[in-house]
């Protein structure tokens, strides 16, 4: 896995459930659960290798220069603390502000995420807020210290469609205001098309295609990406939705060649024995496929 995001850029990571999107994000923050670890490699933030830092130093980075927006706004907030107190805690932790100024910052962050009546909502407990408001609070918590990188792990999957659009628009606006880099993890290609600058398609824990969003949607190269696109409903009723036969293989039982070969319409004998390298058949458009690569 290899990815880079520049300030102000939105990188989307797409793929089916279980292909390693969330694990990639957690690895970036050095928050992998027990039993998982980064086998090798580096994670650089402004040239500093996060993986080489001592734990205390990483704690200082988390929430201040790199922050994460979680998938489930219902469970990402502590039920026994007010929303404002939770945001203020992040402020106090990283900027050493006392109770009152930290609280003011928290209210300001809620205002930034367009929370209606932020001063009153800051005193509310999570269960008193709607799903959309909770997700705004979660975003406020991630943004309050103006991080350089925001990891958003399926920030809208738990929300209904109108709220989804609002939250995505909000993330875009805030990114423009703060100049942060955004890594958007999703399985929703519609979301990708609307918000991302560049896209990485993941399959079974590996990058299979990477391109600018227009390049990817206009001319997807990898058969998996093409399959994903074909599976998006277009609104012209009647036609049966295409699907990709089979499921993602468990990472413990990957086939020796290309991981997608067993489900791939183009797979030849070479695909089943040798893993395809990442090549760049068009400028800025990379793909890992024997049939479509350079």
């Amino acid at each position, binding site marked *: 896995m290899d990815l880079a995001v520049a300030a102000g850029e939105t990188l989307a990571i797409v793929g089916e459930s279980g292909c390693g999107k969330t694990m990639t994000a957690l690895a970036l*923050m050095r928050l992998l659960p027990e039993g998982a670890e980064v086998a090798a490699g580096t994670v650089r933030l402004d040239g500093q290798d996060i993986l080489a830092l001592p734990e205390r130093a990483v704690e200082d980075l988390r929430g*201040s220069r790199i922050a*994460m927006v979680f998938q489930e706004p219902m469970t990402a907030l*502590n039920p026994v603390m007010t929303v404002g107190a939770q945001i203020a805690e*992040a402020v106090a*932790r990283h900027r050493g502000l006392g109770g009152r100024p930290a609280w003011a910052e928290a209210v300001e962050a809620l205002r930034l995420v367009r929370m209606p009546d932020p001063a009153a909502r800051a005193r509310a407990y999570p269960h008193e807020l709607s799903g959309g408001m909770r997700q705004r609070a979660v975003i406020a918590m991630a943004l309050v210290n103006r991080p350089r990188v925001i990891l958003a792990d399926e920030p809208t999957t738990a929300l209904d469609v109108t709220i989804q659009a609002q939250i995505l628009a909000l993330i875009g606006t805030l990114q423009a205001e703060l100049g942060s880099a955004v890594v958007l993890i999703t399985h929703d290609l519609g979301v990708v098309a609307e918000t991302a600058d560049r896209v990485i398609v993941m399959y079974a824990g590996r990058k299979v295609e990477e391109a600018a969003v227009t390049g990817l949607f206009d001319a997807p190269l990898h058969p998996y990406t093409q399959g994903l696109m074909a599976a998006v409903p277009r609104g012209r009723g009647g036609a049966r939705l295409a699907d990709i036969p089979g499921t993602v293989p468990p990472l413990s039982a990957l086939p020796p060649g290309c991981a997608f070969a067993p489900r791939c319409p183009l797979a030849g004998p070479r695909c089943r024995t040798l893993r395809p390298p990442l090549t760049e058949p068009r400028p800025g458009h990379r793909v890992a496929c024997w049939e479509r690569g350079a």
Partner: protein
Amino acid sequence: MRRALANPSLVIGVAIVATIVLLALLAPHVATHGIAQMDMRNRFALPSAEHWLGTDNFGRDLWSRMVAGARISLAIALAATAGAAAIGTAVGLAAGYFGGWVDLILMRITDIFLGFPAIVLALALVAVLGPGVTNVALSLVVVFWTEYARVVRAATLVLREQTYVAAARALGASPARILVREILPNAAGPIIVLASLGLGTAVIAESALAFLGFGLPPPAPTWGWTLAYGTGFMREAPWLSIVSGAAIMLTVLGFNLLGDGLRDLLDPRQLTRASGATRKT
């Protein structure tokens, strides 16, 4: 609040506990006689206007001794429960959150303490430390902390996997901060329930020690010792044992009802189970 009032065991428990706590606090004012004030002409007096609950073998007023005994029992129970809850919670949080060898070592130590029969361990400790309010409370702390350690560890194991704990970690919170700010407040429910039930157990344990002669030495008016020497005068003055036994029973009942009530209030799953909604098997 309405749910609290609709819960009969909570209401009765609070009423009993509040009454006894109030009597204990106001003991010097509600007592009619000095606790060591003897009156040899009025030995084994029946309950009367002068002696509401009668007198004992030295003519001492039983009512006054009972309310003074409430002070002793409650003070020891409170100190023992607070100490046990504090130690057990700290151990349980550390074991549950850090896991691995920290968990292994802490829980094996807990098992060692659990291996001793509670009252025997407490007896041995008082025998070594000597009598006195502090020593009795201390020995009960040693006996009771394990329960909190196990319950809090179990709660921590569940809570540490919650998304908001991961979110706190992603905001740069240190383990200590996560334990105190995220996990402990969410584990407060079971700790509170356990503590209110534990107060009842501590009252029994303190009375048992006193009954066996390992509590505060006479003339301290402990309920347990009054019960014990009262048995020697069952024919002349049965009220001695009956009243002190009833005082112990009522106090423990009060704490148990309070604990059960709080559990219903704080644990919604328990509530549905109690109402029979999920009792299908």
